[in-house]
């Protein structure tokens, strides 16, 4: 098994105590235990504190635009199906700016693990509401408190037909690591929404706040969609963690016969062999 240190690189720009540290070490542990070498892995991210993770984990990295972590991941999937692709970004990136891509990639069901660092706040822009902020949270912009209901990413993903839906907590590292491994190995789109305290800007959803609420429910049948929906809707005094739903369905890749054989990126090509394609116009 590779050493953890083979994956941990760079000097992080995160605040001391940030939930991102736990997520990063869980990811490194998951990759090591799955024996995925850096060159076999691609991490796609958008913009935000979470989206800096390609700079702190040794792997291929596409650190793209805000909200646009998923589309390049889909393109890369088509180009090289042998890469293990992980999309890592925050709640603003994944559910706000990139909401449309979230919706449609759940439908597409490409073989991607999507790890959302959900701290319910915009950290990099210094503390505005995110789509998952609880109603009532006051910020410099939401001066009278957040008026909108919070977006429920797990319920949304389930309704859209996601095959793997899980919730983790950055401080429960072993559970997070094991869930990441299951998500990476899941054949299809796998969403792991990771609750993560923001020590600088989110004064409501703190470590203490989570520690009082989280629990691990007994999930008898992870293929039971109705139970998964019920779990996804639990929030407040008790917050369940775990893999709520795990039921593969046909993937984006399985609908593409052209992906059989070598990855497209490594297939040879000679234009001269294509001259016959113009015959249909004769």
């Amino acid at each position, binding site marked *: 098994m590779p050493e953890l240190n083979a994956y941990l690189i*760079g000097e992080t*720009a995160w605040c001391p105590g940030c939930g991102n540290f736990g997520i990063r070490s869980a990811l490194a542990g998951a990759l090591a235990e799955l024996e995925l*070498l*850096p*060159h*076999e892995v*691609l991490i*796609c991210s958008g*913009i935000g504190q979470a989206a*800096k993770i*390609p*700079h702190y984990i*040794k*792997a*291929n*990295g*596409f*650190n*793209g*635009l805000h909200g*646009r972590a*998923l*589309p*390049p*991941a*889909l*393109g*890369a999937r*088509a*180009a*090289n199906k*042998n*890469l293990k692709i992980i999309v890592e970004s925050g709640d603003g990136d994944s559910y706000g700016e990139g909401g*449309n*891509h979230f*919706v*449609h990639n759940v439908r597409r069901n490409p073989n991607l693990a999507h790890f959302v660092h959900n701290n319910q706040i915009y950290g990099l822009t210094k503390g505005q509401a995110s789509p998952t902020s609880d109603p009532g949270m006051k910020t410099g912009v939401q001066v009278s408190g957040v008026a909108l209901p919070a977006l429920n990413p797990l319920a949304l993903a389930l309704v859209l037909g996601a095959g793997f839906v899980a919730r983790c907590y950055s401080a429960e590292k072993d559970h997070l690591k094991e869930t990441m491994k299951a998500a990476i190995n899941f054949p299809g789109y796998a969403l792991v929404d990771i609750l993560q305290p923001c020590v600088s800007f989110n004064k409501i959803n703190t470590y203490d706040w989570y520690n009082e609420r989280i629990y691990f429910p007994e999930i008898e049948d992870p293929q039971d969609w109705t139970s998964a929906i019920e779990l996804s809707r639990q929030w407040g005094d008790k917050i369940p963690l775990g893999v709520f739903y795990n039921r593969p369905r046909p993937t984006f890749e399985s609908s*593409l*016969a*052209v*992906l059989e054989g070598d*990855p*497209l*990126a*490594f*297939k040879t*090509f*000679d*234009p*001269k062999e*294509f*001259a016959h*394609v*113009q015959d249909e*116009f*004769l």
Partner: protein
Amino acid sequence: MEVNILVGGAAGQGMDTVMNLLGKALVRKGYGLIYTKDYMSRVRGGHNFSRLRIAAGKPWTNIESIDIMVALNEETYNQHCGNLASSGRVIFDPQLFSLPDDEDRGVPVKLEKLAAEAGGKVMANTVAVGALLVLIGLQSEAVEVLLKETFAEKEGVAEKNINALRAGMDSAANSCSACFDLPPQNEGEKKLFIDGNQVLGMAALASGCRFYSAYPMTPSTGVMNYLAEKGIDYPLVVEQAEDEIAAINMALGASYAGVRALTATSGGGFSLMVEGLSLAGMTETPLVLIVGMRPGPATGLPTRTEQGDLGFVIHAGHGEFPRAVLSATSHEDAFYRLNKAFELADRFQTPVLFLSDQNFADTHRSIEPFDFGRLGYNRAIAEEGGFEKPYKRYRLTDNGISPRIIPGQFKDEVVLVDSDEHDENGNIIEDAETRRLMVDKRMRKLKALAEEMDEPDLYGDPHPELLLVGWGSTYGVLREAVDALSSSGTKTAMLHFSDIWPLPQKRLKNLLPGVRRSYCVENNATGQLAALICRETGLSFGGSILKYDGRPFMAHEIVKEVEDDA
């Protein structure tokens, strides 16, 4: 000697399929032709028409005069009878409407009745084509063969259409005989009958494009239709994106991961792609992006043509980064030029924009088959020994181009790209020195890129007194205008740009200052190429000929403007 045909009716009457068949049949028999469509942005109703010009050699454009009109509805006749030649003929259905009492050019054919008898009213167009064949003195065999090819998998459809075709011929033969002489047939090899979007789609496929993502938008959708069909048999993934933002970001992900990737859109969609274009510049990811122009601003005229986005694509994207802008001038050239776009994108690791427009995209022409041996496939991806280890994606080099490898290509080597300013590794930086080095590195690529730009095509008198300058899809119409002006005694030439940015300047600087009269001819309202030329070279034109009503130029319009200005 030539024949100009106009077929008009409401949207949804299915004219296009059958006119394509007729066109292809004529090309197979060796006739030179051009087929253009003028259609509205609606699924049913309205007034759509298409023009088919059969002429000696290789016609470049359509003309206004009509020899044969097929009026599937009364509006077609009313709108176009002013352009019907005195010796012209109108094929119409006397059960749908009647022509004015003093109109003696009518060829009444009960299109719908005969179609219904043959198996369905929807084949009224096929009946009309039968009547057309009589007027131009052709047998039905070539069309029948094509009907069989086209409907090979639809039980009984070809037979019904052949019956409809023959019924149209029989009916027209009762009231007239061949009244038009076709031009001489071309000798030599078989010709293609193909539209601009198909040329681009085929060029992409034959350039080794492996990933195409787009959101449907007229007039670029034909590229996606072509490639989607090919994605069944060839190693190519075509993905309809949820929006244009996704389309360009998907293409960038695919390109980064190692395949040639393409997206296409029109102005509105391109507006959404602009941030992604900037990302391509910053991450130095090869990308080819076709912008099929239509009139804006905003939704504009969705199904019509304009050259209004030249300035936009040259300047689009926040920040400064190198790019190339090429354009589709003719079907013959665009095939190789889109290949060039892929080659440049890979070699310079930067976005290449390819400007098309509705006029080019939707026009079918008869042209020589393409030489696939001329296409390049140089990926410029480093092999073992072609880069220093450990690999650094943005290693500083003299020409600004860093050796590129792709993820997974080499054990222990990773490829990191970043939309933030970054160091040689691809890691985020904020220090002034690295920033300056990276900007310089990216912009250094421009020098060699500029050397790859083709000078504008010179056609006509090598020592002209009158010079017409244009770019993009006006190539053919300018040629015909040059021919017309030359034949009336004016020493005329044209300079036509296919590669536009970085602006190739040599030929322009040699020719323009010494010419007595010069016009920049553009399908836009502000003269965007003229403004660009002035900015880059200080040279200006004597005048400009601009058209921005959403319709392509006709040669006589250009000739008239020049002559009126004399």
